[in-house]
């Protein structure tokens, strides 16, 4: 095992020999994952601390930082193909953390047809991508970032905001008008259906930010400024009195039945924390596997796990961040107890082995692939055994 770890591919690398020791990455990293070499001042990355926000990558003036996810080549390559595919000259760059559904994008920016570019934090998008998009003939770029105080990577949203402000000045000087790039901010919040509240107090207990208050029995109030939209209270509410913007129970249910119908058996559905597993920009999905990327493992709801099995999914895999990596005050780990209880229950009807929780981090891109393959093999084996 330890041998495997030493050979593991990592998501971010700094080429020290070419580093100009400017210290931009060192000062920008929200996680103190970059050290300076005491003698040379060059950047040294401590991958165990790295959360793969991509801020250092997008900021490095010497281009000595490499990343496996959403690097310049893959972003521009994607833009070229997506421009053809969507037949549009409007680009919408959005953070997965705050992006509403497509109708929400339409409301935000008044655009119907657009090239979507959805990434975990807009802070990882370097200036070159904007310039490339404009040279490709994209006329309008809309950026949807998280409200600054709710940025899951702490500094990604504010930094991208400053980057866009500077770019707009440049674009104006070049004659592209004052608003070539529009930045809007958004953050997902809990929705409260007070008439369904049964005053159990779960939301009050579980919320890491003390946002919900039980004013009187059956009367829950949520301080929306305090709410970070992790969805934990929603997953813990026994009365379905809470829901989460864009990740409403009904929407996830619809997604489950749609994805289950698309898959060929053995069907494996993966509920991912979107900070634990990063999707590639143009996934060619395997016919046996589908993913639901949630804002945090806190929104992995036991109701949806059962529903997946009920809809004909053969295996449910949950990919969560380790507690230290959680972007939402440890909310992601809190659903493990009800999930374990459900697993025991599923065991009573022979499905216990077909549910698995794993903790992964994007810093080791192969770890998740490996676990998924292993789980898929196991599910295929169980299915064969049953049908034989």
């Amino acid at each position, binding site marked *: 095992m330890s041998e495997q770890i030493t050979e593991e591919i990592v998501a971010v690398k700094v080429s020290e020999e070419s580093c100009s020791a400017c210290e931009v990455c060192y000062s920008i990293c929200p996680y103190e994952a970059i050290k300076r070499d005491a003698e040379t001042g060059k950047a040294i990355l401590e991958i165990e601390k790295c959360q793969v926000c991509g801020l250092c990558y997008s900021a490095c003036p010497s281009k000595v930082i490499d990343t496996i996810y959403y690097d310049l080549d893959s972003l521009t390559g994607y833009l070229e193909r997506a421009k053809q595919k969507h037949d549009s000259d409007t680009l919408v760059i959005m953070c997965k953390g705050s992006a509403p559904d497509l109708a929400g994008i339409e409301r935000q920016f008044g655009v119907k047809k657009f090239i979507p570019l959805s990434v975990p934090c807009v802070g990882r998008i370097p200036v070159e991508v904007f310039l490339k998009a404009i040279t490709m003939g994209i006329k309008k770029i809309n950026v949807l970032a998280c409200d600054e105080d709710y940025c899951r990577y702490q500094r990604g949203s504010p930094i991208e905001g400053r980057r866009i402000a500077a770019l707009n000045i440049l674009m104006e000087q070049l004659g592209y008008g004052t608003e070539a790039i529009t930045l809007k901010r958004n953050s997902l919040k809990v929705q409260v259906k007070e008439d369904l509240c*049964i005053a*159990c107090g779960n939301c009050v207990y579980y919320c890491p930010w003390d946002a919900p208050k039980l004013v009187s029995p059956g009367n829950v109030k949520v301080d929306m400024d305090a709410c970070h939209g992790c969805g934990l209270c929603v997953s813990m509410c*026994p009365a*379905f009195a809470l829901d989460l913007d864009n990740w409403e129970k009904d929407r996830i249910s619809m997604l489950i039945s749609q994805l289950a119908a698309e898959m060929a058996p053995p069907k494996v559905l993966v509920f991912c924390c979107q900070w634990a597993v990063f999707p590639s920009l143009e996934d060619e999905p395997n016919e046996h596997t589908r993913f639901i990327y949630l804002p945090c493992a806190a929104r992995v709801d036991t*109701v949806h796990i059962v529903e997946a099995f*009920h809809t004909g999914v053969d295996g449910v895999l949950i990919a969560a961040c380790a507690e230290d990596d959680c972007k939402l005050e440890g909310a992601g780990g809190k659903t493990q107890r009800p999930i374990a209880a459900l697993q025991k*229950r599923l065991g009573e*009807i022979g499905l216990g082995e077909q549910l698995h929780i794993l903790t992964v981090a994007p810093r080791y891109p192969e770890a998740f692939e490996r676990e998924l393959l292993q789980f898929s093999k196991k599910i295929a084996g169980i299915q064969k055994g049953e049908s034989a």
Partner: protein
Amino acid sequence: MIVTTQKPLDEILDFISPYKNILIVGCDGCTQPPRGIREAETLSQLLDLGGKLRNKEFKFKVNTLVKQCDSYLTAVALKDMIDDDVEAVLSLACGLGPQTIVILYPQLPVFPAQNTVFIGAEEREAGTIEERCAACGDCILGLTGGICPVSRCAKSLLNGPCGGSQNGKCEIDPEKDCAWALIIERLEKLGRLQDLEAIQPPKDHQAVARPGKIRP
């Protein structure tokens, strides 16, 4: 609150297998953990999956109501839930729920989905619910520093700990605190150890004779 545990799915499947159209009804009352609509919906899907193993297909209606121990509220709510098609009811309430429904719908078989275990308090950090009241009908918390030996001592002793109290733990289960060690510690802190000097007579287990019935 009334604490319940889930019955094994096989036991519930045995109950309901003779029927097809079944109403599963949760209780939003004091049942802990809450056995409301989330649990009712989850249970219906688990039973569907379990039914498949028995080649049995069910048609569930799933709902919840405010408190199944209130026969008036339950009657009003069930009126909209029970039609001619419903052949059986599965209640997620404590032991009171099925009994309320049986009186309201004498012709319908009603089954419990839970085992009712005790009156308890939730310790959220520990993730436990602990028995704290035995509903004995003759409360002595005033003499025992607010800690109930009837429900929290394995032997329900009234006059101090037994010889099995070891380092503050119970000989029956060393994971559990000795209630009397807690009582003595607390009364000592309050300077009221003298409260324990009076010998308590044997408990009157007929303080409320079974079946209990009062007019509040």
